[in-house]
């Protein structure tokens, strides 16, 4: 894929000041593609990219594509154990990291920090890759045991980027601020690649947190930011800690990855002075954004996600598939994933007869407007980060003092949901929640480690002997309430 011929925009890290304009990015990706070829990368080889949120991340990603590789963008906070699981699963040719990467030794594959490597620009090579070859892998779960990697082709990515550019418009994208991590679809494809492929300026402040929230108004004002995207929990922090911009150029704000309530939606409009605040519906499997509702077009309403951005939706009702009504949302989109890498057992249930079964429950009106009503899949949405509770059950059950575990979502005012764990300890164990948390943190990134712990004498089961996460949650809450009385 000739990335140096795309006409990429510029990318600047607001924390370090490092900036690569379009021409510098093209030069740098050609140089790095040469280094990758010299290091033995062959077209079709997977490459782990274990850093993110910087201009050098994008230079590495584009170099991998230019050299014909398959880029797997990882959460930089993965533990050594999680990296080992992914290497075993993917058999990558190499890993790309930032200088000072803590896990470089003993991985069994080369770990390169390309920014500091010497090498001349390489002339573009014909790699033999086609638009339907896999380009990008994003891990949505399973890094502690059985990885689940969403595979996108160049065709699905390019379709999504073209649709985003068409719907959003170049004037809105002109100066885009990205506050999100770049190892998941929202930050990478929506907030990062969309402006870069449109030739716009991308400003990065991906560390998130209190500091980014507190400085948001100033950054928006000083850098004349036209567009930004974020998650609801970030806005809750920014609305409290950050002073609003006095003179902003904001033309569009996206909020996604977690439900945006109507009240918060209106507060964002009030803080920013921009009425084009859009509640987004995006899924990694559809290369992120697939529908959106702007407050400019329709009044804020819980669950409102507007019309599809290319493709079409249907609902699965008890009577079968229907174009309108309520049920599981089924999606068709040119940006649909190829499947879950090496996992036909996971792919087949969700990709059927040309439709992606989203696991989200929604309603489609006669005019094609979508509303999200809930979800039937079990995942926990912690401030926009999706956590598969079954994966954490299995991780916990590896602990020698855990007899049984059941993780579930607990409603939380700040993060939307938090990760909770009900645990039955083996007889005689005196392990505590904080001890179990510390054990987990040695094995898994903190995003997926339970925050609230309930130690129970038994994990409740249904009369058919099955564990119901909802029933376990109810038991835990009742036990905690009784303890307080």
């Amino acid at each position, binding site marked *: 894929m000739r990335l140096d011929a795309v006409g990429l925009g510029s990318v600047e890290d607001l924390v370090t000041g490092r900036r690569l304009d379009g021409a510098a990015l093209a030069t740098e990706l050609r140089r790095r593609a040469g280094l990758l070829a010299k290091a033995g990368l062959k077209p079709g080889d997977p490459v782990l990219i274990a850093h993110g949120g910087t201009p050098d991340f994008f230079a590495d990603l584009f170099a991998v594509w230019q050299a014909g590789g398959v880029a797997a963008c990882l959460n930089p906070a993965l533990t050594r154990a999680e990296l080992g699981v992914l290497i075993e699963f993917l058999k990558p040719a190499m890993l790309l990291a930032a200088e000072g990467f803590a896990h470089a030794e003993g991985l069994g594959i080369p770990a390169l920090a390309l920014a500091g490597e010497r090498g001349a620009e390489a002339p573009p090579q014909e790699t033999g890759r086609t638009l339907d070859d896999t380009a990008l892998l994003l891990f949505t779960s399973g890094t502690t045991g059985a990885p689940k990697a969403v595979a996108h082709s160049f065709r699905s990515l390019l379709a999504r980027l073209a649709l985003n550019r068409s719907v959003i418009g170049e004037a809105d994208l002109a100066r885009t601020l990205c506050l999100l991590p770049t190892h998941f679809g929202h930050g990478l494809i929506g907030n990062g690649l969309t402006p870069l492929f449109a030739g716009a300026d991308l400003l990065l402040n991906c560390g*998130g*947190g*209190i*500091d980014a*929230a*507190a400085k948001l108004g100033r950054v928006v004002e000083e850098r004349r930011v036209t567009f930004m995207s974020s998650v609801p*929990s970030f806005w*809750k*922090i920014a609305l*409290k*800690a*950050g*002073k609003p911009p006095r003179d902003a150029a904001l033309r569009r704000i996206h909020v996604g990855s977690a439900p945006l309530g109507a009240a918060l939606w209106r507060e964002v409009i009030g803080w920013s002075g921009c009425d084009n605040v859009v509640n987004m519906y995006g899924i990694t499997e559809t290369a992120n954004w697939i529908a959106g509702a702007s407050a400019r077009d329709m009044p804020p309403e819980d669950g409102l996600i507007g019309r599809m951005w290319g493709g079409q939706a249907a609902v699965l009702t008890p009577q079968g598939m229907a174009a309108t009504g309520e049920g599981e949302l089924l999606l068709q989109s040119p940006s649909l994933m190829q499947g879950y890498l090496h996992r036909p057992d996971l792919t087949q249930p969700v990709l059927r007869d040309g439709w992606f079964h989203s696991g989200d429950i929604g309603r489609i009106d006669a005019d094609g407007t979508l509303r999200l009503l809930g979800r039937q899949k079990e995942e926990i949405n912690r*401030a926009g980060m999706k956590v598969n509770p079954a994966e954490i059950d299995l991780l916990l059950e590896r602990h020698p003092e855990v007899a049984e575990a059941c993780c579930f979502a607990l409603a939380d*005012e*700040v*993060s939307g949901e*938090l990760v909770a764990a009900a645990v039955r300890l083996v007889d005689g164990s005196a392990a505590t929640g*904080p001890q179990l948390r510390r054990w987990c*943190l040695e094995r898994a990134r*903190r995003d997926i480690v339970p*925050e*609230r712990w309930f130690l129970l004498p038994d994990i409740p089961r249904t009369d058919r002997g099955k564990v119901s996460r909802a029933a376990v949650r109810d038991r835990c809450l009742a036990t905690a309430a009784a303890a307080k009385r």
Partner: protein
Amino acid sequence: MSSAAERARALLAGALETEPAALGADASIATLEAWDSLAHLRLIEALERALGKPLPPEAIVEIGSLADVTKILESA
């Protein structure tokens, strides 16, 4: 231990989903892995409920330790 210090410890422990006894006197955002931006917002909201008024943005950014939380409660 003063009453404000005890209340501060309880508020911070609640925000971090831990036991008050697990927090040392030197507990701070730099030493506690659980003190991320989400926990910080939980702490701010708990503090505002305890004080009965919103905190100014500057104070929200400056709070970074158990001692800071205690100081705010003492000065209320």
